[in-house]
């Protein structure tokens, strides 16, 4: 049902320039702040049955028939923001779990990306401990084969499956190295390797990821977005936080997918938010 506001038309006189003009006042209003259209003087209008000009304000006399202004009603509330809030709480839980079990997260995410056929580029730079070139070098990457020498100790491979891959480096007179590397899409995975003279072998695990503890940042955004959605306030805050919570990733990117869904739901229900900017406040 549309909201109905009763306005009563009347006339008043500016106490400064004595200009008389017509003014609309809501039904039941006792005092109204008016601005004179002639001299822009601001003054108070006292609504009274016995029109008398006092020191407190100017008089107002009902003039003509009452009329009605019809405003569109506030959009009916749906469950959409609450659904978005629940999804974002799930993102928060998944994000925290990811921070604790990060290695599994890396492996699962790269497995899915690899399954989708996304490839990456690897650039390995090999020298000895004194930064001199190493000759008769073989650089091999798991599930791909030998890397191509591009000069000055650099070995490059394009179209490598993404994920954590083993690189095996052999050179006569040097310790054999097995190095794990994270092959990522869109960015070239670079690794600088120093070879040591001698015999035997050395294995280095992938450890470029940094600390998983940092990953708690993104679930916090998910929780903030969940609260804003649940309370249906601050549409901008809810939308921005849900976008940032995409970086919470989660196992098999579940966190990111849920965040995107939540963002779409929030965006589609923006008129239900009471922030006075995107929503409707009367």
């Amino acid at each position, binding site marked *: 049902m549309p909201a109905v506001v009763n306005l009563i038309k009347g006339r008043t006189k500016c106490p400064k320039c004595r200009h008389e003009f017509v003014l609309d006042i809501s039904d039941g209003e006792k005092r109204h702040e008016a601005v004179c259209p002639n001299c822009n003087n601001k003054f108070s209008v006292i609504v009274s049955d016995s029109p008398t000009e006092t020191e407190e304000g100017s008089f107002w006399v009902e003039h003509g028939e009452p009329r009605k202004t019809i405003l569109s009603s506030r959009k009916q509330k749906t469950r959409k923001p609450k659904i978005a809030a629940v999804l974002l709480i799930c993102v928060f839980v998944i994000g925290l779990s990811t921070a604790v079990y990060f290695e599994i997260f890396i492996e699962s995410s790269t497995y899915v990306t690899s399954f989708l056929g996304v490839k990456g580029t690897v650039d390995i730079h090999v020298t000895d401990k004194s930064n001199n070139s190493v000759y008769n070098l073989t650089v091999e990457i798991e599930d791909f084969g030998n890397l191509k020498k591009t000069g000055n100790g650099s070995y490059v491979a394009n179209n490598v499956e993404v994920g954590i891959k083993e690189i095996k480096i052999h050179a006569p007179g040097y310790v054999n190295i097995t190095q794990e590397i994270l092959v990522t899409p869109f960015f070239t995975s670079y690794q600088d390797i120093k070879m040591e003279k001698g015999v035997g072998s050395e294995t280095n695990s992938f450890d470029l990821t940094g600390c998983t503890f940092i990953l708690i940042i993104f679930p916090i955004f998910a929780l*903030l977005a969940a609260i804003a959605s649940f309370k249906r306030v601050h549409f901008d805050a809810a939308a921005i936080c849900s976008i940032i919570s995409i970086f919470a990733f989660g196992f098999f990117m579940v966190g990111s997918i849920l965040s995107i869904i939540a963002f779409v739901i929030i965006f589609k229900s923006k008129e239900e938010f009471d922030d006075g900017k995107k929503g409707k406040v009367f």
Partner: protein
Amino acid sequence: MERRERSSSIIMLVFFIPLIIWSIIQFIAPLALPANSVDDLSGVTGISDNKEIIDSMPAPWNTVYSIGDSLCHEKAERSFFINGNQMPFCSRCTAIWLGLAIGLGFMVFYKIKLDEKFVFVLIAGIVPIGIDGVGQLFGLWESTNLIRVITGIIVGIVCGVAIGVIIDEIKEMIYSKKTQSN
């Protein structure tokens, strides 16, 4: 931002006190252990790769180091040493924990509302660590411990404040639900 009433500070203290104790313990742990007994805990995140060293430590320091072992890579060159012993977390993680405690400590005295301005401050707080971390991850540069501490403490403070805001909002929602049902 407004000053918090004393009555509503209690719930914030419940979260702040354990966090500040946890942050201080991280500094006490290397002091409590024999000098030069923990020299290199470098490993991989998510995996307990210093189990032998940690098992030989007395309680409660073994618990502190064990949590650090699974949540942090604990690279020696990226960590601080006290009493000749490596700290249980790397410099960045230590700074984040400390920042979280500072942020929540701030929320004990002040109240901040969840709105657009606050979200923008939160984003501004994670930008430095994002730039430093991503640059390092892709081999563009190697950060220093000082930069790690600065970026870590900034993100820790804003996240600590955010946790405080979340606590306030949840408390408010529970309170308004109770009022409605009455």
